[in-house]
């Protein structure tokens, strides 16, 4: 063993080879999985070069076990964003989302059986999430963020015996560990999750469109069978918002969810969840089509039918971790090609906002070290774009509500018709510009989207994107 590990040491010479091959080219195929993992673990432990860590983490098995994973994540994440004044947990102003946070923390770690350990983890979860939002009050909490933070906590705290004896340990050691977890969660949040933390779900819904786009490119038949030209792929929302941590639970060290996060962090890429979901659908094509046919009679409309069918298939796949390991292999293999397939929509049709992690901090294989000021600027930019989008949608909805009341109220309808008629007559006789002027001056909020849509149907939506 000793001599084998020496020959795999992470010197600069092997680095060049590692970049062009996979680590498995060095390991004879007759070696069984357990032994492969053991070997890889030894290599990771000996590695001090972060570039090598990035490669190792993107490969099969990821970082293998939580004891080394925690160190690797910390090392890689701190090369993606440099935080100033990390210790800032004493802010006392409440964040408006703390109620929701408490509700979700209460329902977390349900798969942890030891109730004492579960309570310990929940307490930690609450302190970290609330700490993050008090420190970054511009960000908004979304349901599902707690699933991601739960996963981070378990990397450092999956051993219940150690945790339950923590209270007897020296306080400074406990504090130091808390700071490390907090720092990693903070960096991950700021680098990867900003799209989800605006005050609406518009940006994540945009991200979902990339799934439809990829399926269209890679399997047009399936694209049509799934009616993706007609429906929005809302069925993927929980997987995308939580990077699969809502559905794939880290029940033990071998759970697939660890490898997914290893890959995201090592590749520094927010594309991974989108690619995994797409590959999941492509690989389950036949099952999915069968399920859709089986279900056709049972659902009211296509949105329901497709959502339900995918949910059913996903549920059966989750219990089959081997299947997910296969998806991971495909995802790694096709990564570069698939991201290239997406680049056309990314830049041409501007589906994705220009401050998105997908285009900036987590676009994959980044060589930039961002700082807090960069992130602040990006957040401000995104909040601005999101605000415009949300206003358009809300005024549209308000307009619908007005229409709804008008149509459902016969008296009002009559009165309104008379009013319109009168206005028409007046406009015939008076200066034609008068009505336009009044309209422009009053700028009734609910009329605005109509105005913009009529004058400039498409460009308005994206005019603020740059």
């Amino acid at each position, binding site marked *: 063993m000793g001599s084998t590990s020496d020959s795999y040491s992470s010197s600069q010479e092997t680095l060049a080879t590692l970049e062009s091959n996979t680590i498995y080219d060095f390991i004879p195929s007759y070696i069984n999985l357990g032994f492969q993992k053991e070997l890889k673990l030894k290599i990771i432990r000996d590695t001090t070069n972060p570039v090598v860590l990035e490669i190792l983490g993107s490969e099969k098995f990821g970082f293998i076990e939580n004891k080394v994973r925690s160190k690797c994540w910390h090392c890689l994440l701190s090369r993606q964003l440099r935080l100033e004044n990390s210790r800032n947990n004493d802010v006392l102003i409440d964040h408006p989302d703390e109620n929701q946070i408490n509700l979700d923390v209460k329902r977390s770690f349900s798969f942890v059986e030891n109730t004492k350990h579960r309570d310990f983890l929940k307490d930690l979860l609450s302190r970290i999430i609330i700490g993050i939002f008090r420190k970054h009050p511009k960000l908004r909490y979304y*349901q599902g963020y707690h699933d991601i933070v739960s996963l981070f906590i378990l990397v450092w705290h999956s051993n219940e015996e150690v945790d339950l004896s923590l209270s007897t340990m020296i306080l400074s050691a406990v504090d130091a560990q808390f700071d490390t977890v907090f720092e990693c969660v903070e960096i991950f949040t700021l680098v990867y999750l900003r799209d989800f933390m605006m005050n609406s*779900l518009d940006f994540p819904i945009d991200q979902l469109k990339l799934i439809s786009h990829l399926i269209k490119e890679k399997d047009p038949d399936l694209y049509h069978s799934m009616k993706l030209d007609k429906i929005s792929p809302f069925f993927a929302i929980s997987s995308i918002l939580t990077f699969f941590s809502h559905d794939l639970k880290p029940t033990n060290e071998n759970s697939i969810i660890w490898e997914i996060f290893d890959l995201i962090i090592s590749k520094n890429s927010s594309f991974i969840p989108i690619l995994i979901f797409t590959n999941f659908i492509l690989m389950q094509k036949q099952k999915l089509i069968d399920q859709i046919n089986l279900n056709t009679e049972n659902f009211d409309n296509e949105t329901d039918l497709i959502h339900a069918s995918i949910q059913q298939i996903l549920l059966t796949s989750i219990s089959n971790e081997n299947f997910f390991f296969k998806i991971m292999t495909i995802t790694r293999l096709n990564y570069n090609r698939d991201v290239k397939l997406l680049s056309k929509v990314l830049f041409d049709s501007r589906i994705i906002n220009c401050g998105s992690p997908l285009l900036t901090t987590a676009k994959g294989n980044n060589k930039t070290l961002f700082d807090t000021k960069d992130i602040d600027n990006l957040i401000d930019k995104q909040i601005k774009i999101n605000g415009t989008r949300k206003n358009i949608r809300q005024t549209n909805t308000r307009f619908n509500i007005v229409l709804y009341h008008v149509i459902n109220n016969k008296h009002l309808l009559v009165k309104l018709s008379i009013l319109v008629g009168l206005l028409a007559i007046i406009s015939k006789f008076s200066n034609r510009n008068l009505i336009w002027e009044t309209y422009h001056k009053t700028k009734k909020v609910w009329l605005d989207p109509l105005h913009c849509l*009529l004058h400039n149907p498409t460009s308005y939506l994206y005019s603020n994107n740059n």
Partner: protein
Amino acid sequence: MSSKKKTILKVIILGDSGVGKTSLMHRYVNDKYSQQYKATIGADFLTKEINVDGDRTATMQVWDTAGQERFQSLGVAFYRGADCCVLVYDVTNTKSFENIKSWRDEFLVHANVSSPESFPFVILGNKIDIEETKKVISVKSAQDLAKSLGNIPLFLTSAKSSINVDPAFEEIARSALQQNQNDADAFEEDFNDAINIQLDGEADSCAC
């Protein structure tokens, strides 16, 4: 021949986050309760076969949506085709009670139902197992609200202690079935067209 075709009753559960929508659905469908149901992200559904008028069966399809406000824009995608809408509040949470009306309005605006005045809603005041001192919504004010919204049936339930859940869902099934049959019989007045005509008219007059 029509008796051979499956009857699907689509029911949608709305209400603030944490009022117990997921817990009620699981209590009704699986007769189970766990303190540890995950927060709902997006929309989930469960089905249950039920008996209607003696020997006929129908499939009740219960759609459970996320309560956090930001998920509403997504939830509305699932309102379409509902046969009954269940509005849930938590008897220990004033805000959740005050929001019942806006959940109903939100539903009516987006569901595009054929006759909004007669569309069936059911209100559930959940968590009545919790000790009296913590309850903040009186039975009286709940009844007043139900009345003011058009005599909507009201049930005080507990998913935890299984109080009133079955009777509530029996009522839900009954009204969903009725709505389902009404819809099948009715000559559909198309509200969509009305909206389109309005918009087209406006577009023309502005373009010139």
